[in-house]
């Protein structure tokens, strides 16, 4: 069952339902479509209606015997297999059934296991029988065909000559079909005709017609299904058949005919025409099919024959081409390649001569020519488009000429030469590369003939190979040239890079020009602004006597023009150009006479530094390569000049910097971000009393120096990136015996772009400064003491004198004046001392909150005597606390108040006001005094300055009071300003930061 895909019909015949039911059920389970019948009549009906695979048949039925049904069924086209079902198996009945053709029998009640085995056997037997029948029929068919085809195949297998093959097939066809004569035709696409190729048993009187006349297959109404349906067409009465009305068929009187198409690649490639002169011949379908097969077979054989032919020819040509190709591959020289190509072209095509012209710009130049073609290819140069070869290059299409001597397109000289040599046939094909047509390959033949398409195709193939070889050779040459160039350029560049003298560099460049361009001389002119022109700088192969004093104006000559226009300028021949030359150049030219110049500007930092010139003694066509090379050298030269100038500058700068670095009075160390010494001067090491080398870490140095920087510097190192721009600083003492005072400053090191790259540590030996400072301080102290001591003596002794009651009145006045003078002197000394301290910053200032009102009133009280003496009215209003040094602030108040008292004419008014002003306190004093002259305003707070008008009041003063006021106020963010008119009184206002409550 497994081999069957569609369910088979089976019939169960029995008159006992208890037998039928389980059998039907079992068979249905096995996948059969089960029918049943209970009588002979019903069985006959069922057998009429269906094709059963198996019939289970009861031997004994009510209306007759099962064996009868079995016998009858054997007459059916495809009788089913019978399995007899019997209740009482007798040998007789079983034998009868088997003899009648039963496949087997089962006993009732049915043993299903046995039945399964039986079913398989029966079905297998049935399948084999069917297969055998099919094979039998196929075999018979094949045999027939095979016999016919074998005959034809044998025929064709014996020869690959198409004509002979067709003749033999005609014979075989005649033999197979019983035709009297046969002819074979092949289709000629060019003329759209069936051309006669072979004939078999053509009667002599019809030979010309049957075997030599083309068959106009598609014209003149002869349109048979042959053409479209590709099927044979036949007639047993040709003369009466309208399809055969063409005169050709009328010309050969025949009774029957068959036209058998010959199919090749799905198209009609030819036909066989079979003729029965007298007999009427009709064809059965099967016969026609066979003939069609024959037609196809012949098509294949025909194709093979053709392919073989072509392959044979191609193989021959390919061999030659391969040989040529191999030989071409071994050649690298263009001339040799071209020579090989022309010679091989002659051999391969069997022509007389060949030549190649290669394109050079708009011209075609003879590249190679066979000896035989040399006299005809006499013109060395042709323009593209001119003559036949020129046309090929211009159009990119081959030209084929039957007789070149008569072709009007060709130029006369060529035609005459060809005629003289007896050359007629001519063909020329383009040499193509990816970049276009690079030349033309021409061949000459003696024969007056057009080269066949095949030959042109071959020539083209040849030309393609030649093109590739030429291109490759040119590429190779270009590559080699570039390689040589690159090597030379590299050598020159390397030399340039290692040389740092400008003149040496330029000399190398000119040497490079000679070597790379292969020119006769070279020179460099450099522009000199002072001369307003180009001066000869250096050169090779040029007479220095001629060039020494040469100055070229911009725009003059090749070099001047290259300079002025900043581009390469050249002349092929200076005797035949339109450039203007200076008299100097003309002189030079007359003496030495170089003819061709090429000049390129040397541009350094966007400025034309000068011009590089190459000279050729003879006229020279400068190629783009020449210009490129010279420009490259100019660029290299410019870079080298630039480098050498930069190098000089850098070296000078470096030497200078290094001198400064080493001669500075400070020790300097540059520490990078890794904490390593990037640079250090000798003094740094000396001051630190340890070795300091580039690359040492700061930790190394701190570990070896006896100077105790270990607290400050590691902090500097840690905060390196966060260091404020002003840096950090500190002081340190070096241990004895050196015992020096060092002041160090750490500041961020910035690179040119302003990026922090580390820290600069500066060490300053301040030992001497400290000494000087101390000495100065001691000196001030000493002087103060020395001045004050006698002054105090004078003061005290005068005081004693003044208190002497016995002192005469007049003397008492003198003593009083002397005391006043002494007081002035003491005041002056005190002020000078204060100023000295304030200026040197050595005064200890203790800013505290000060009650300015109380202080003012105290001072006012102290000055009461003076105020009263001058008859002034003085008042103080308001109050406020400020942040200041008590002692120093008091001096400010005293100075300003005593000024007001002093510089106000008797009977004046002095008003002090104290008021808060934002976060400051304003203390102002207004007087009705002499005021500040306009001229004095700018200098009022200067040391030792006194306004002109102070003398009007005969007051004493040192010119230090206001200076001291300003100096003191500067100490604690105080300010002083004034408003005054000369003679109109003044107001001096002091503002100070507001203080808190006074304790």
């Amino acid at each position, binding site marked *: 069952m497994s081999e069957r895909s569609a369910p088979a019909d089976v019939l169960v015949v029995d008159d006992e339902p208890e037998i039928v039911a389980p059998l039907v059920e079992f068979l249905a389970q096995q996948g059969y479509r089960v029918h049943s019948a209970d009588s002979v009549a019903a069985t006959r009906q069922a057998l009429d209606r269906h094709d059963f695979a198996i019939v289970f048949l009861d031997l004994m039925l009510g209306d007759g015997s099962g064996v009868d049904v079995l016998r009858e069924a054997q007459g059916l086209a495809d009788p089913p297999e019978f399995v007899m079902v019997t209740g009482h198996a007798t040998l007789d009945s079983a034998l009868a059934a088997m003899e009648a053709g039963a496949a087997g029998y089962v006993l009732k009640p049915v043993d299903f296991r046995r039945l399964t085995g039986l079913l398989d056997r029966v079905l297998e037997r049935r399948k084999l029988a069917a297969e055998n029948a099919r094979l039998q029929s196929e075999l018979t068919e094949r045999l027939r065909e095979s016999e016919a085809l074998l005959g034809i195949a044998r025929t064709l297998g014996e020869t690959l000559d198409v004509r002979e093959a067709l003749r033999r097939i005609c014979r075989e066809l005649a033999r197979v079909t019983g035709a009297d004569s046969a002819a074979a035709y092949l289709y000629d696409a060019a003329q759209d005709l069936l051309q006669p190729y072979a004939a078999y048993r053509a009667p002599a009187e019809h030979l010309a017609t049957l075997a030599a006349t083309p068959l106009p297959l598609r014209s003149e109404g002869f349109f048979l299904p042959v053409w479209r349906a590709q099927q044979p067409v036949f007639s047993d009465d040709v003369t009466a058949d309208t399809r055969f009305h063409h005169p050709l068929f009328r010309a050969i009187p025949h009774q029957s005919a068959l036209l058998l198409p010959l199919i090749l690649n799905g198209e009609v490639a030819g036909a066989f025409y079979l003729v029965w002169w007298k007999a009427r011949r009709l064809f059965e379908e099967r016969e026609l099919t066979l003939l069609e097969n024959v037609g196809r077979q012949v098509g294949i054989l025909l194709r093979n024959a053709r392919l073989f032919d072509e392959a044979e020819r191609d193989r021959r040509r390919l061999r030659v081409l391969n040989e040529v190709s191999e030989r071409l591959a071994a050649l690298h020289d263009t001339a040799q390649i071209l020579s090989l190509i022309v010679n091989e072209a002659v051999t391969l095509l069997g022509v007389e001569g060949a030549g190649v012209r290669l394109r050079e710009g708009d011209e075609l130049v003879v590249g190679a020519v066979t000896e035989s073609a040399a006299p005809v290819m006499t013109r060395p140069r042709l323009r593209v488009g001119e003559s036949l070869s020129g046309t090929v290059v211009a159009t990119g299409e081959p030209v084929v000429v039957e007789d070149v001597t008569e072709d009007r397109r060709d130029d006369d000289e060529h035609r005459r030469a060809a005629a003289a040599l007896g050359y007629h046939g001519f063909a020329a094909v383009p040499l193509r590369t990816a970049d276009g047509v690079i030349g033309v390959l021409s061949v000459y033949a003696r024969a007056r003939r057009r080269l066949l398409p095949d030959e042109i195709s071959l020539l083209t193939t040849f030309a393609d190979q030649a093109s590739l070889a030429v291109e490759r050779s040119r590429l190779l040459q270009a590559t080699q040239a570039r390689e040589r160039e690159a090597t030379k350029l590299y050598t020159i560049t390397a030399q340039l890079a290692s040389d740092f003298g400008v003149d040496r560099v330029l000399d190398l460049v000119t040497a490079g020009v000679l070597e790379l361009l292969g020119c006769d001389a070279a020179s460099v002119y450099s522009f000199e602004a002072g001369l307003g022109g180009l001066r000869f700088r250096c050169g090779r192969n040029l007479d220095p006597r001629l060039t020494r004093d040469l100055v070229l104006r911009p725009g003059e000559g090749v070099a001047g023009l290259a300079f002025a226009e900043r581009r390469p300028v050249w002349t092929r021949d200076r005797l035949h150009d339109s450039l203007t030359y200076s008299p100097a150049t003309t002189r030079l030219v007359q003496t030495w006479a170089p003819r061709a110049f090429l000049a390129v500007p040397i541009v350094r930092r966007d400025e034309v530094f000068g011009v590089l010139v190459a000279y050729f003694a003879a006229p020279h066509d400068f190629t783009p390569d020449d210009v490129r090379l010279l420009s490259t050298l100019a660029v290299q030269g410019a870079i080298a000049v630039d480098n050498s100038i930069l190098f000089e500058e850098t070296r000078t700068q470096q030497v200078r910097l290094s001198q400064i670095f080493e001669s500075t009075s400070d020790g300097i160390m540059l520490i990078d971000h890794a904490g390593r010494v990037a640079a250090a001067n000798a003094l740094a090491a000396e001051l630190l009393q340890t070795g300091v080398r580039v690359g040492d870490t700061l930790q190394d140095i701190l570990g070896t120096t006896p100077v105790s920087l270990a607290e400050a510097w590691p902090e500097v190192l840690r905060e390196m990136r966060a260091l404020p721009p002003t840096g950090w600083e500190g002081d340190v003492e070096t241990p004895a015996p050196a015992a020096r005072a060092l002041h160090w400053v750490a500041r961020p090191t910035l690179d040119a772009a302003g990026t922090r790259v580390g820290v600069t540590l500066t060490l300053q030996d301040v030992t001497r400064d400290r000494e000087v400072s101390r000495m100065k301080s001691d000196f001030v*102290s000493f002087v103060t003491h020395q001045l004050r001591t006698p002054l105090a003596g004078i003061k005290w002794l005068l005081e004693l004198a003044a208190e002497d009651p016995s002192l005469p009145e007049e003397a008492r006045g003198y003593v009083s004046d002397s005391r006043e003078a002494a007081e002035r002197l003491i005041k002056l000394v005190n002020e000078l001392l204060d100023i000295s301290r304030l200026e040197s910053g050595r005064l200890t200032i203790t800013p505290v909150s000060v009650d300015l009102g109380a202080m003012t009133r105290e001072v006012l009280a102290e000055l009461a005597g003076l105020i009263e003496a001058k008859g002034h009215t003085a008042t103080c209003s308001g109050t406020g606390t400020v942040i200041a040094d008590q002692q120093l602030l008091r001096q400010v108040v005293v100075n300003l108040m005593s000024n007001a008292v002093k510089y106000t004419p008797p009977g004046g008014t002095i008003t002090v006001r104290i008021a808060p002003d934002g976060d400051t306190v304003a203390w102002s004093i207004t007087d009705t005094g002499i005021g500040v002259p306009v001229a004095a305003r700018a200098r009022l707070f200067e040391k030792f300055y006194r306004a002109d008008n102070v003398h009007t009041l005969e007051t004493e003063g040192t010119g230090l009071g206001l200076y001291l006021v300003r100096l003191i106020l500067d100490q604690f963010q105080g300010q002083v300003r004034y408003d005054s008119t000369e003679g109109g009184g003044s107001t001096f206002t002091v503002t100070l930061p507001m203080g808190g409550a006074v304790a």
Partner: protein
Amino acid sequence: VSHSARLLLVEDDRFLRRACAASLRQRGFEVVEAVDGEEALRLVRAERFALVLLDMLMPKVGGLDVLRALRAEEATVALPVLILSNSSREQDLAEARQLGIVGYFVKADLSLRALGDLVAERLEQVS
């Protein structure tokens, strides 16, 4: 006013010494004069004084040295000292204050009257 207290005036400048001693005696003080620090120390060790008026800058032994010596000896560790100096070096002043003094005045800025008042005032304070 009774000013019978004994004062030691240490002053190397004879004009100052003379004027100062005269004025203080006029005010009724008993004044013993020393011309330098050496003499001053000798006197202090030998006699008793209510107050020492001490100059700072003196030959041989300076005022500060005298003060240090006084403070180093038990007998004089609490002896009131009034510095009278024409030098006003801050560090000297600071050290003197640390060693213990009853005042520090610049002679040129002081009148004899004011000096007498000061001495009287300080004696009153220390007694």
